[in-house]
């Protein structure tokens, strides 16, 4: 009935009826990648007054006796050592990349490869958002995927999705992938 749900609600809608009670998604990436903007756009909140994240933000959606928690953790270098503390029991990792920040592709690739090796993220599906596609200088998602060597990931489901958190383009496609992959893993 009515229009299909968007953002976080679409994920919880899809999970309806699975045995899981609580789902945990962690959003990571370098500073200025657009994690908070993505989180706010998923929760249909205003994205015009965002400031750099000190610590973390969390959004929770509860529906049908289920709870979806999305953690957005600051990407500043001095906060990155704290990332590990938030990985336990994670069901899915969203890694956000600023597609226009070519100078830091190597840095973001290193951080991602370190995360992938974490024990707590073993086998956890990864969605990489190639964000900021609205900027003229953005690199295409395929190029970023190659730079990150995503095709070498054999131990988990992964996907790269071009998007613009500001305009919302591509975000729902990523959410649809999440729906399918969390559900598959849980069943």
């Amino acid at each position, binding site marked *: 009935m009515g229009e299909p749900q968007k953002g976080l609600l679409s994920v919880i809608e899809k999970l309806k009826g699975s045995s899981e009670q609580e789902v945990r998604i962690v959003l990571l990436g370098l500073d*200025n990648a657009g994690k908070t903007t993505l989180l706010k756009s998923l929760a249909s909140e205003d994205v015009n007054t965002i*400031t750099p994240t*000190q*610590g973390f933000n969390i959004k929770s959606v509860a529906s049908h006796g289920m709870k979806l928690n999305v953690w957005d953790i600051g990407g*500043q*270098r001095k906060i990155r050592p704290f990332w590990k503390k938030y990985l336990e029991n994670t069901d899915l990792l969203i890694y956000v990349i600023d597609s226009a920040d070519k100078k830091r592709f190597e840095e973001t690739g290193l951080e991602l490869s370190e995360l992938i090796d974490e024990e707590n993220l073993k086998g956890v599906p990864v969605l990489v958002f190639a964000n900021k596609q609205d900027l003229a200088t953005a690199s295409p998602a395929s190029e970023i995927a190659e730079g990150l060597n995503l095709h070498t990931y054999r131990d988990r489901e992964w996907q790269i999705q071009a998007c613009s958190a500001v305009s919302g383009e591509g975000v729902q496609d990523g959410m649809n992938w999440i729906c399918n992959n969390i559900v598959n893993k849980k069943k």
Partner: protein
Amino acid sequence: MKHFLRVVTQFFLFLYCKLLWRVLKFVVRKFTGRCELQRICYNNKHGARRTLKIESSLKYSKNELLQTALSVHSDKVEKAIDDIMALKKINPDTNPQLGISLQASLLQIVGYRSLVAEVEKLRKEPYDCENPEHEDMLVKLWKELRPDTPLTGRISKQWCEIGFQGSDPKTDFRGMGLLGLHNLLYFAEHDKATALQMLHDSLQPKHNEITNPEWEQKNLDKAIGFSFAIVGINITDLAYSLLVSGALKTHLYNVAPEMPSLLHFQQTFCYLMQEFHRFWNEEDPCDIMEFNRVRSKFHRRILRQLKNPDMALCPHFSASDLHLINL
């Protein structure tokens, strides 16, 4: 059917209350010989107590002249007051103080509105590396906070020392745009001792953590303090949301004798930085990851304080001082 009846009852109740209110106002007016605006001015001391009531009286008035008075240009305030006095048949010669009081309040009201517009304009202006004015302000900020250390380059890891996230601060201003930079610079220039103390404290790892060998081993001690500049941009967001939501009216109506200006807003920012710094120390969080918890607690506390109509967030600009200067 039950629902329908409830709606009808509510509607009649609303009409009844509205009628009762009008009758009450009419009776009081006949009885005291004063209109609502006069009564507000006589019964409330100047500042937020009076101006807030005048604002809501004008807002809910059924007379168009009174309603539109809220959005007149500041140059037209005097004329608007003359019109209101004429409409209410108040003789300015027998009530000389009333016109002055009303004018001061109306100036505060329209001034607040134009301050919101001015702040919003600054917030929407993104930091631009091509703009020499922006670049100068940024470099000046460095010089104020690190007077003894020259900056090695415009793009430099040194920016992290004053609490930006990376080697180029431009991306850190984000949703706060130039407003964040203006505030930080004002704080560093006009409240220098506090700013330097806060910067110093932000760089200090907590003592109890230092003695913990595990933390030293993982080399996490540097991550314990907060980032001064980023916190400044965050507190700018706090000040901005207080202003836009109208919560700052209490404070600004108490401290600004006439139109509140950008200067008042920047002083409020300094106050919020000082208080946040103190609050952070009192809360004594384990690490930076608790920032948003502490920040929302602080936000709630400020909102609670602003509910008190006598509240002023700048102690050195209290309402009583203004009383001596202006009226």
